[in-house]
């Protein structure tokens, strides 16, 4: 009699994974992914998806998570319903969680202090990645997930320059330390020219752009929105491929489907 049950068959990749080239496991073919959402449709579920995938046992991935938008308990609960225990992963050092409340430079008024604060944050991320690298050399990759960028803007007291500098530093990590960067941003909150420029800059430097928006017909209970995945052949290069489909968010995952194909 078999003492252990046979391993479950690998499930088919969903539309998002196919679009992102994550279909058959292995490391993603891109380095920097931007997720854009709007007020009516929150794109946080994409980050949860990345988080779960990175921490799954199939890969040996590790995650440095800047969970600035919500407390750790929120992510813990959400991921638990998706079948991933964040507390266990944190204890195993596969997940490094950086909380907004731990950022100490929020009260600082001087520009220098803010710069120092961002430098500290960057150093923290760097130290986490170095610690991960030194421990296991299984070849697993590290994903840095930032949720979300507008909180960094607030930490910078509205200074777009500091945020962009910080992002450039993080981007350098993707090549030097073999990491992947996933950032969540809101597209409908920027009204000043400077902030709009930042949006264009972010679009420019990304390899992949994932946009979650509401349906043009309004909010519906069975289809929560539509997703557009833009893949570029090089940062700042031409658009290689464009995927568009709809999604419905559930407690234990997300359903992706083409319009009209869901029964």
């Amino acid at each position, binding site marked *: 009699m078999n003492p252990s049950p046979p391993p479950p068959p690998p499930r088919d990749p969903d539309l998002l994974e196919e679009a992102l080239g994550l279909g058959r496991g292995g490391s993603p073919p891109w380095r920097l992914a931007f997720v854009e959402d709007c*007020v009516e*449709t929150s794109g946080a579920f994409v980050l949860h998806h990345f988080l779960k995938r990175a921490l799954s046992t199939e890969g040996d991935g590790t995650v440095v998570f800047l969970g600035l938008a919500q*407390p750790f308990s*929120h992510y813990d*609960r959400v991921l638990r319903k998706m*079948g991933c225990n964040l507390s*266990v992963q944190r204890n195993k050092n596969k997940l490094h969680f950086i909380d907004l409340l731990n950022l100490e430079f929020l009260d600082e008024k001087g520009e220098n202090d803010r710069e120092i604060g961002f430098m500290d944050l960057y150093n923290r991320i760097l130290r986490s990645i170095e610690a991960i690298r030194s421990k296991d050399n299984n070849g697993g990759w590290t994903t840095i997930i930032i949720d979300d960028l507008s909180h960094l803007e607030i930490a910078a007291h509205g200074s777009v320059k500091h945020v962009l500098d910080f992002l450039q530093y993080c981007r350098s990590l993707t090549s030097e330390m073999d990491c992947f960067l996933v950032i969540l941003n809101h597209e409908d*909150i920027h009204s000043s020219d400077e902030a709009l420029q930042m949006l264009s800059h972010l679009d420019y430097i990304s390899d992949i752009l994932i946009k979650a928006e509401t349906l043009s017909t309004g909010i519906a209970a069975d289809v929560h929105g539509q997703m557009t995945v833009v893949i570029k052949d090089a940062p700042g290069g031409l658009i290689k491929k464009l995927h568009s489909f709809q999604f419905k968010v559930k407690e234990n995952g997300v359903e992706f489907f083409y319009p009209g194909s869901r029964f």
Partner: protein
Amino acid sequence: MATAADGRLLGARSANTSSFSRARSSPSAVLPSPPNPGVKVGPNGATFVSSGIPDLDRILGGGFLLGSLVMVMEDADAPHHLLLLRNFMSQGVVHRQPVLFASPLKDPRAFLGTLPSPVSLSKEHRQRDTLVDHNQQDQEKGLRIAWQYKKYFGDQQSSQIHNRDVKQEFSNDFDLRKALERQHVQYIESMSIQDIPRLTILRDRCSNFLSGLPRSDGGNLSAGRIAIQSLCAPQCGYAEMVCIIVYTEPKDSISGLGLGCLYQVSEINYSLFKCGCCGNVSHFISFACISEEMAAPGRYIVVYEDKDMAKLLTGYQDMLGLLHVHKVAHNNSQVPTVLEASTFSLKLQKRRSLSQLQNMMDDGFPGLFKHTTNSQLTHLQSPKLLVSQECFFMGCNHSMRAMELGTKILRLLFIVSLSTSAA
């Protein structure tokens, strides 16, 4: 999933590695105090506080999420956003939750005089209840007097709203005609934000308020409320981005506490509070609704009379205004909350005018409230606030009717509640 299995195996040894969350309190433990009616526990470990309007609680699926941010954008022409603020604060007083009120008025306590009193039961019920055993009544009085009010009450007879006449429910109906008694209003901490040079002063005051909240003991959750009126009013001295204050408040959160907060943004300052900033705050907020005025003849300074609307909507004449829910909180879950309809109408249950309140309001808008020269309250049946779902708007989410209502500027209602509970 292997990780889940590991969690279960280790669950016996340490609580935080278990995939299953422990029940709040073991059945064998003795409950030290009666459960707090002001805080309700919902699915996904979410806790709610009441908004003060039972219908609104029902629509939102339980009330305001404890720890969520709600913002209400005022409309200078439509006064009913203040009703939300008042009901919110009065509900806090009824449940004996500490309330902090910040207002751009020179004397915020003037506004506190306009808070409505909860509807008390009819006279017959009252007579029946007084026949009950006095001992039990005294015991219950003792239990009900919360610690923070004890120093004010002393030997005084328990006030009317805390005796058995008003049931300790999660959400009370409020009599807009009748003002809350002075003795209750005095517990509400208030501050004026008119002359403060920086928003950090307000933030620090909120932090102090938060640290002063009683901690939850055992399974008894406690909550506090912060109500900020006209955060972006032009008479205020600060001009910083609102989102900063919104963000920095959770920094001072203490686990185990909950906070419900409501604040309003003045319309006049809408230009300062740009769309971008507005959207920024929208992302922090968990619940938002738009308050619109309706072109009701004879009630407001009417832009025009909408006869088509009168034909289409039932009970058009009874409506105070419209409430557009922009966004609803969902905590501890990634599934968005989708309401059946996003626009609701505000009605008074008994179609009577309200007196007394007009005189106490700072902005001298005309319309809804009838002026009275004497201070006597007329003997009318108490008007209660109802929020009903307009059948017309069903299925018309992002309704275009909102745009068609004319030149009124849509006001977003965001209610801000600070998250201090760590699940």
